[in-house]
């Protein structure tokens, strides 16, 4: 059975703008960088409420796929549809306003702002929209919003560092801040790019617990991870990307048994 058949046999797939429970629909996306095919023929459906893991070796195109989703890159061909709306061609801020938030692989926080402010920025963006001229309003006076920000920071374990500048944080803390910046928006779809990379085991487990808790709230997530422990504890379904192509898709158990995956990815990583 070929990889393509694997995918075709997956129930619930289709090239319409998504069946009732499809939130994100990636349709035949291609992207190449001056001859290098980073993504080819990528089709992917993410269902409402699920945690969908994307795994694959380094350079497989995982981050590129997320970049196409959030408008950082324009695909050469194909489209990304979110909840019936075509995202391709939209600006990053428009895509976020539709309810898609992204947690970056390399933490991209605001170094010159405090930890609390780093979370207030996405919180205000969610509440006030893409532009609001409120030159005399200060979030310090808005207790409800601030409480929420502090709660989210507490849930990722940063409650002790509210007033610290983000620039002085450790890499692992920046990652948690990234996560908080995504969570505060209560996005309909959260895209996580290796949220636990570089974290100590203890922090990784805390992050897994946190993400499990969010799942109970019904948030749909796409998570890119190298750490198989994280993947198998969180994912409802897994897509395997290698060389820019999806070579397998299925439940964690199916993926574990898939020989192609073993060959392309798991074997190599010796997990």
């Amino acid at each position, binding site marked *: 059975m070929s990889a393509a058949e694997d995918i075709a046999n997956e129930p619930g797939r289709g090239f319409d703008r998504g069946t009732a429970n499809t939130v994100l629909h990636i349709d035949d996306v291609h992207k190449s960088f001056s001859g290098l095919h980073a993504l080819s023929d990528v089709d992917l459906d993410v269902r409402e409420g699920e945690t969908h893991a994307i795994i694959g070796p380094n350079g497989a195109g995982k981050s590129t796929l997320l970049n196409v989703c959030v408008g950082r890159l324009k695909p050469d061909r194909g489209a990304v549809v979110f909840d019936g709306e075509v995202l391709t061609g939209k600006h990053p801020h428009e895509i976020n306003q539709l309810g898609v938030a992204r947690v970056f692989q390399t933490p991209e926080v605001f170094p010159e702002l405090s930890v609390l402010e780093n979370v207030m920025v996405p919180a*205000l963006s969610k509440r006030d929209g893409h532009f609001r001229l409120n030159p005399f309003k200060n979030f310090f006076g808005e207790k409800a919003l601030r409480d929420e920000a502090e709660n989210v920071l507490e849930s990722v374990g940063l409650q002790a560092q509210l007033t610290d500048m983000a620039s002085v944080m450790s890499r692992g803390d920046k990652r948690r801040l990234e996560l908080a910046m995504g969570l505060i928006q209560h996005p309909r779809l959260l895209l996580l790019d290796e949220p636990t990379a570089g974290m100590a085991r203890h922090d990784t487990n805390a992050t897994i617990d946190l993400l499990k808790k969010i799942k109970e709230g019904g948030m749909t997530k796409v998570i890119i991870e190298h750490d198989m422990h994280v993947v198998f504890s969180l994912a409802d379904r897994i897509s395997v990307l290698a060389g820019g192509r999806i070579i397998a898709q299925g439940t964690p158990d199916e993926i574990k048994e898939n020989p192609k995956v073993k060959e392309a990815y798991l074997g190599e990583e010796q997990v």
Partner: protein
Amino acid sequence: MDRKTNLKDWTLFLGFAAVVLCLPIILDPIGANYPDLLQKIAIFGIFAIGFNILFGLTGYLSFGHAAFIGVGSYMSLWSFKLLTMNVLPAIAFSVILAGMFAYLIGFVSLRRSGIYFSILTLAFAQMSYSLAYSVLTPITNGETGLQTRAIRTDPATSLLDGDIRIIDQALGIQEASVPTTHFFGMAMSGYTGFYFCAVLLIICFFIAQRLTNSNFGMMLKAIKSNQNRLNYTGIHTRPYLIAAFVISGMYAGLAGSLMAVTDPIAGAERMQWTASGEVVLMTILGGVGTLVGPVLGAGIIKYAEQKVSSWNEGILDSFFSFLPEGLQHFMSGLGALFVGEGWHTTLGLLFMIIVIFLPGGIMEGIRRIAAVFARKSKSNNTSAAAPQPAE
């Protein structure tokens, strides 16, 4: 936490206001207590505060803000010539027009960032400058500059040479010669002029402080910090940048208007790129992104300009008179390069020293000194308290 920051903000504001209002007393010992200089310090303080809203908060370096000074000055002059010598309408129209002008320039320039943005603003300002000398001479009066005149008696006289002042005329105000600018009867010259500018400076500071601490200000800082990331949190950065650009343009328009208020003449040299560069120097000298820094920078540069450019070789000669004659002449000859006409050399040198040794400007210097003292007093405290529990 909020109450504490609130208190800090109010202390800063009240301290600033007190210092500005006492400026004549404070500057008296260093020989800077005369209205002309005080007015300049206040006016350029406003200019620099506004400039810092754009440059300090968003990091976008405009090299064309002098254009808005020009817009403000010309607009005010026309208000004096056509409407009334009362400065209120002049200021209002200037600020509004400068804001509209800034919207236009900002709309186009903010399509680019970094060095390209700077070059676009510079090009726009130079364009306005040369237009003021060419196509726009019916409005700017070219090299002669725009001035207030006596009421014209012959309607055939050009408006450049004879004023009409509709409002003043309608009110039946008698004019002996060319009248002076005033704020409901208060003449805008001398110390009254300074205090008028000083009050506006304090208001401008207050607004800038509120802006900086607001959600809007936080977004501007986020743009400087990581504009790319901001897009992915759902913020459209362009309208924020345009708003900051327009606000700082309005500050510059106000400064330009006040130049005309305190001295009712307007010439295009105010729009030259050197004037745009000067406000950059003021902001960096004082401390980019700080509230007080730009005003401090403006004060220092205007004071030094007045002093240094008034010195000449004779003064230097007597200053170095304690040296042997040959050396004395050498030193004063060397010094002459930096005084009088050579003021800009000094300014350039000062700027280089600051950027190389104290890139955060004077405010950073103050912070560093304060930090040293804080550490000292802390270590004193702990060394006094620590030994007992340790034993």
